Every structure is written in C-alpha cells, then in structure tokens.
C-alpha cells in the first residue's frame, strides 16, 4: 500500500509552490502555458532578441538625451527622454500591470522561454526524486491495474492515452489554462474565468470518470 501525503501536507506543498513562485518571480506559473511557450521555442527566442534590441535602443536614446542635456544644460530634454524600459516592447503579449507584483519583480516582462523549459524539466526531476525516495519508482509498460480495469489494457492503451493527451492539449490552450494556471493560481486569484473553467473541467472529469467507473 503506497503512502501518499495527507491532504493537508499536499495542500501546503501546492500553496508553497504557487505563493513561493509568485513572491520570488512576481508572476504565477501555468504548466500548459510553459509547455506552449517551449513548443514555440524559435519564435519565442526571436521575440526575445527583438525585445532586447528594443530595450538597447531605448537605453541608447536615453544616454544620448542625457548627454545632450548635460552639454546644453537643458534639464527639460532629460525629462522628455524616454526612460529605460519605459516603452512598450514590440511583442507586448502576456504583459501584466506592474502594480500586481512584489517590488523587486518586473512582471511587465515575460520570463525567457528557457526558464519554462527549466521549469518543466525540474518538475520531471521532482517526480523522479519523489518516486525514488518513496520507493515507488518502477519502469513499467502499463499504467497500473486501475487504468487497465477502468479504461483499457494492452496495446489499445497507447492510442487511448494519445487521444486523451490531444484533448488535454487542445482543451488547455482553448480555455487558456490548466489545473495549475486556472485551478491553483487562477482560482487562487479569484479570476472569474478561472473559476468557471475549473468548475467545468473538474465537473467534466467527474462525469467522465464516473462513466468509466460505473458504466463503461
């Protein structure tokens, strides 16, 4: 019999992860969003290069304006010069109001896409550590007896899992979040869209799981 965390310890772990991430980085995480960004690696990197060039251009304008103001003694020139990072980067997607984050964070800028790959890889390693330390790690070619009893067994398991994955991939992107982005962090921030989405995906999973358990 596997020993799982008691519910309160699991709740504390999830809350620690969510709130700690926010406090450290000034934003919330969403695994499907991370996944989507990693899949767009090339365009994300191109956007980051453009953003860096834009920031550098703004900085150069700021320096030139400051030098000009110092030479002429015109303080108004300095006041009119754009602040470094004060302009809107060309990408603009995913921007958030700066007031929402802690003082040390810069939530108007998205984290580099490489951090999202790091996040997913670390989640995988975290799973390995948990499985090894709890003695549950075992390489197996099935999904366990419950999956075999409730869903399907044998080779049919592979297309069923693939199909389920497609539904998850399409659904999370269509609704704009998953169990972490909508469920944990969105509901935690009392976002109406996340509360609606969580009720719907949880409710659908309840219906589908009950059908698998009782009917199919």
């Amino acid at each position: 019999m596997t020993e799982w965390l008691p519910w309160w310890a699991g709740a504390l772990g999830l809350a620690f992860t969510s709130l700690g991430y926010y406090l450290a980085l000034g934003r919330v995480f969403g695994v499907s969003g991370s996944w989507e960004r990693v899949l767009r690696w090339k365009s994300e990197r191109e956007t980051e290069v453009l953003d860096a060039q834009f920031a550098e251009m703004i900085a150069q304008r700021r320096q030139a304006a400051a030098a000009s103001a110092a030479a002429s003694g015109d303080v108004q020139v300095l006041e009119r010069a754009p602040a470094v990072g004060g302009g809107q980067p060309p990408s603009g997607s995913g921007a958030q109001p700066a007031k929402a984050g802690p003082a040390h964070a810069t939530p108007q800028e998205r984290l580099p896409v490489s951090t999202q790959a790091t996040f997913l890889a670390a989640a995988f390693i975290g799973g390995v550590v948990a499985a090894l330390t709890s003695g549950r790690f075992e390489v197996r070619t099935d999904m366990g007896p419950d999956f075999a009893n409730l869903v399907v067994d044998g080779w049919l398991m592979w297309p069923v899992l693939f199909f389920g994955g497609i539904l998850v991939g399409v659904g999370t992107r269509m609704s704009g979040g998953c169990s972490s982005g909508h469920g944990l962090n969105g509901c935690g921030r009392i976002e109406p869209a996340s509360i609606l989405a969580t009720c719907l995906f949880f409710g659908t999973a309840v219906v589908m799981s009950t059908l698998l358990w009782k009917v199919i």
Partner: protein
Amino acid sequence: MSNTRLHSTVAFFGLALGFTVSMIGFGDYGEMNAMFTFQDFRMFLAFAGGVTLVAAGFVALKVAPSRTKMIHKGTVPGSILFGAGWAISGGCPTIPLVQVAEGYVPALATIAGITVGMLGYRKLNARFLHIDSGSCSV
C-alpha cells in the same frame, strides 16, 4: 536577477511542484479516478486546500486579479475537452511528466498527444477559430 539565479529559482519551484504532485498521488490513475468519483476525498482536499491557501496568500499580499484571464468563447468548450482528456488519460499537463518520472512509460503517449494537441490547436485557431484565450503570464 541574474540568468543563473533566475533559472535556479524557477528550477527550485519546478522541483517542488513535481515532487508535491507525485507525493500527493496525482500520477496514480487509481487515486485520480477515486478523487473524481468521490470515493476518496484526500486528493480533492489537497487540491481545494491548496487553492484556499493560495487565495488567502494572494489576499494577504493584496494581489488583485490579473485581468489577463477573460471569459471568452473558448473557455467553456476548452474546459470540457480538457476535463474529458484528464479523466481518460489521467494527465493534466504536469501529471504525464510526473508519471514518466515514476516509471510509467506509456505516459509518453500522453505527452505526445498533448504536444500534438497544442500544435494542432495553434493551427486550428489561427485559421478558423481566432480565439484570444489569454495567457498564463509565464
């Protein structure tokens, strides 16, 4: 924040997420089905308790809703598709990673499905649906 420190910080919380999700039992299909069929409330309470603590934390930190998540025409159908996929495969996007980490090789099929689904939805949305589904702000 330096690039190394940024990645280290992200990695720390990624590790914490994967470890917690695995230790709660989300990678086990039977535990997950027991949660969704209300045969066992432990995982449900862990999730609901986590959401409650996060909400309390955000209230204490005076964090307002981001307003990047709007209800749009994709919210309802997308959530229903996701819920169905989660019940069938046992995987929200984090869980298949954890399942593979625990040794469940067939969960690679779920990962492949999620990847194909996301890539396919991107093309479908760009060509036909035109839904602005917001951002997880990551």
